[in-house]
């Protein structure tokens, strides 16, 4: 616990040291060093908690009404602390190089201080044991990330994105306030005093948690801030926001589930439903985007959907008393939290490196970067394969666990399990396939072929060492988690135990033995596959050594005069799928088809406005604005009238109170 506090202290202290520094580069180095050190310190108690050692909770008196400064770290908290610390430290290392070009014309002390503050707040959020402390940390976390999103505040769309984010996050927090009021039942807000609620109240609390935490996590249709805010932020911040900050929402939801007692069935159905919708609509929306970071943001919605799906299956397992399904579901959800942090972090960092090298995020203009920035390209390839759920990378393992949880439910007789489980199996397959298509498109269009439209500058591998190091580490982790899953998954037993209430032995039988064998096979086959690929590559290199190696332009295709315009564009690649799902996507396709034997001009443009925003939130907010217009009568602009309002309100309250008093 001392180490946790020291870590938080280091984060805040280095942030404050960096704050007034004029030299942005040095400020960044100090703050990043602090991030790495602080994150390193907090991993120690996190790992101890994950292993199952009890760490005494910390309880300090706090001059805030109702609250106490109470931190504790159990296996569930420890797991999330680990995720935060891992990506937080790596993204900080990356950020030093990434922001270096801005050091000349921008004060970097402020964003670095906010970055460290963001990390510290996320750590407090996942370890807080008091409602007030939790909400304060939550709010500061939201504000710090808001200011980081608006880093480039001279651009109109960044400011717009910032406001959207601020509004969404505060709407979510409003639900959380209500949630804690319900949980406290008029008593203390300390977590350990929360008792099981009577059933209708527990359901109210659950729904409040789903909406409040779901807004932060990005459940569809509460995700609308996500595709705006993530592209606007600097890339290492996007990586932290998408990779870790969304997960604080998942953490909150899981933590509330542990408090509420045995769940009714419909909670599981709701979570599975949210998971399926978020997964499908997230990946479909991702397919239709042309901004690289927007693709990644929508793909975060998809992955959060998968996490919710796993948690939903776990809840169903608890509700129907199927321990295997519960264990697998929650283990899959937790592992996917870690995996998504790793590969989405990697992909955002990769997208940042692309932006760094070319100056644009519009994939319709990019192409052929594989030759020009090979290290970024390879890291991005690993991330793409992992996020598509291909073995032997890490995404495969967690999706496999969730799939196994669903399969455990399919064979049940009770329709309440079998139907959602079957839907989950189908959805997992569909989402996986679409994700593969999405990232084939993203990687292919950005890195293969040749540049589609002229770039402003020749992209060069100027990627600073810190950026490369962070990406390489994350790519290595993608492989390591994929291969070593049979070792890793049993480590989740204490955390899953907190969520399911199952004993260590039961869980070890499921996660360690039954699934462990499958995972071991996955790891071994994966390793063998990698070895064969390596050998083949060696062999190819050896065979080519003595020969003459010729090269020809990409996309030659036997044409006499190939041009860059003959390639698939991002829009044309995605078009068949987008058309297939146009019912849910409402994509606008704007095209001129080629006509005749010798067509002269053809054009295709697809645009995918966000369905939830265009058909849900925008009309709703317009209606609210129209209603608010009517209140304009009250705003007279005369001081006297305003004072009258205040006086009348006070008088009415006084009379009301006294009238009721007797």
């Amino acid at each position, binding site marked *: 616990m001392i180490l946790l506090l020291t870590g938080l202290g280091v984060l805040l202290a280095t942030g404050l040291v960096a704050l007034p520094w004029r030299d942005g580069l040095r400020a960044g180095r100090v703050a990043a060093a602090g991030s790495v050190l602080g994150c390193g310190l907090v991993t120690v108690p996190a790992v101890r908690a994950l292993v199952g050692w009890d760490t005494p909770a910390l309880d300090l008196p706090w001059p805030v009404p109702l609250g106490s400064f109470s931190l504790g770290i159990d296996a569930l908290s420890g797991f999330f602390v680990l995720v935060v610390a891992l990506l937080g430290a790596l993204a900080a290392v990356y950020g030093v190089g990434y922001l270096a070009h801005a050091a000349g014309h921008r004060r970097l002390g402020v964003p670095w201080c906010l970055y460290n503050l963001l990390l510290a707040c996320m750590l407090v959020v996942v370890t807080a044991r008091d409602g007030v402390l939790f909400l304060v940390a939550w709010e500061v976390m939201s504000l710090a990330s808001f200011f980081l999103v608006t880093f480039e505040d001279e651009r109109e769309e960044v400011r717009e994105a910032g406001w959207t984010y601020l509004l969404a996050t505060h709407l979510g927090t409003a639900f959380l306030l209500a949630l804690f009021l319900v949980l406290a039942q008029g008593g203390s807000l300390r977590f350990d005093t929360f008792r099981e609620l009577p059933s209708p109240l527990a359901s109210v609390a659950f729904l409040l948690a789903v909406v409040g935490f779901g807004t932060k996590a990005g459940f569809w249709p509460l995700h609308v801030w996500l595709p705006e805010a993530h592209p606007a932020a600097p890339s290492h911040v996007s990586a932290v926001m998408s990779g870790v900050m969304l997960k604080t929402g998942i953490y909150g939801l899981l933590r509330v589930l542990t408090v509420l007692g045995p769940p009714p069935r419909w909670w599981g159905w709701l979570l599975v439903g949210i998971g399926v919708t978020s997964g499908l609509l997230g990946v479909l929306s991702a397919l239709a985007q042309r901004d690289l970071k927007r693709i990644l943001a929508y793909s975060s919605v998809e992955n959060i959907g998968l996490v919710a799906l796993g948690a939903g299956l776990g809840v169903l397992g608890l509700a129907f008393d199927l321990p295997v399904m519960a264990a697998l579901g929650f283990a899959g959800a937790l592992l996917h939290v870690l995996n998504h942090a790793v590969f989405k972090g990697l992909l955002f960092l990769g997208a940042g490196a692309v932006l760094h090298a070319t100056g644009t995020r519009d994939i319709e203009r990019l192409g052929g970067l594989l030759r020009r920035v090979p290290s970024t390209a390879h890291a991005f390839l690993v991330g793409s394969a992992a996020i598509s759920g291909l073995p032997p990378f890490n995404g495969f393992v967690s999706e496999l666990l969730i799939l196994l949880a669903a399969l455990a439910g399919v064979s049940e007789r009770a329709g309440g399990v079998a139907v959602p489980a079957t839907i989950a199996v189908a959805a997992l397959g569909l989402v996986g396939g679409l994700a593969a298509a999405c990232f084939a498109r993203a990687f292919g269009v950005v890195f293969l072929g040749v540049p589609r439209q002229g770039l402003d500058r020749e992209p060069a591998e100027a990627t600073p060492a810190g950026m490369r190091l962070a990406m390489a580490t994350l790519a290595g982790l993608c492989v390591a988690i994929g291969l070593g899953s049979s070792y890793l998954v049993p480590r989740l037993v204490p955390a899953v135990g907190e969520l399911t209430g199952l004993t260590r032995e039961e869980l070890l039988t499921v996660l360690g033995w039954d699934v462990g064998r499958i995972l071991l096979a996955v790891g071994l086959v994966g390793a063998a596959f990698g070895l064969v690929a390596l050998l083949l590559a060696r062999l190819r290199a050896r065979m080519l050594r003595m020969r003459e190696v010729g090269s020809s332009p990409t996309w030659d295709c036997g044409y006499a005069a190939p041009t860059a315009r003959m390639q698939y564009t991002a829009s044309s690649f995605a078009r068949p799928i987008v058309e297939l799902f146009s019912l849910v996507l409402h994509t606008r396709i704007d095209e001129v088809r080629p006509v005749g034997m010798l067509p002269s001009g053809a054009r295709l443009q697809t645009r995918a406005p966000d369905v939830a925003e265009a058909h849900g939130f925008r009309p709703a907010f317009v209606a609210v604005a129209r209603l608010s217009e009517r209140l304009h009568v009250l705003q007279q*602009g*005369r001081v*006297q009238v305003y*004072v009258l309002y205040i*006086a009348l309100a006070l*008088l009415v309250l*006084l009379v009301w109170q*006294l009238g009721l*008093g*007797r």
Partner: protein
Amino acid sequence: MGWEIDPILVALVLVNLLLLGASRLAACVRLVAVQGVLLGVLALLVQVGWSPWRAVLLAGGSILLKGIVFPRLMWKALRGAEIRREMEPYVGYTLSVLLGLGMLGLTVWVGGRLTLPVPAASHLLVPVALFTTLTGLFLIVARKKAITQVLGYLVLENGIVTFGIALSHEAPLSVELGVLLDVFVAVLVMGIIIHNIREDFDHIDADRLVSLKD
């Protein structure tokens, strides 16, 4: 000891009613000054029994500021603004007095029901305090000239002080002195602002200052 402060409380009520019915600004200023002096005496009478030094200090400060300094500032502002009376109030003077009587009734009802942590020095104290507060608010709402607004603010503050006297055992000396200082600064600032408004706009009608509305 209700008998010795009740006359003062009644005088306070009468001053309030006069204020509601007065149209000449100079008279208003004088009435507020009288109210300030009355308050000082009231504080002296209520508190002298258990803490003479403190009572003398507070009463002296109150009389000095509210009876002498504020009226001077006001007169200065009045002379600068060259206005004599409030011409078109939102609520007419007769109606103001009638509404004032209504408010008095309401506050007596409230005073009867309100339970205080410590018993007040007189059963009239709470109604009078509330009535003075409401009168101040009413003046702010119902009058147009900026100077009447300042007077309303002062009356409002007098009401709060009266209430404080009712609970004087609870409020430490520093708080009361702080309130006094607050009011002093506020009146000073308002005097300056009135002066500047007149310089810039040639009038001090608060109802015509609506161009800042969103």
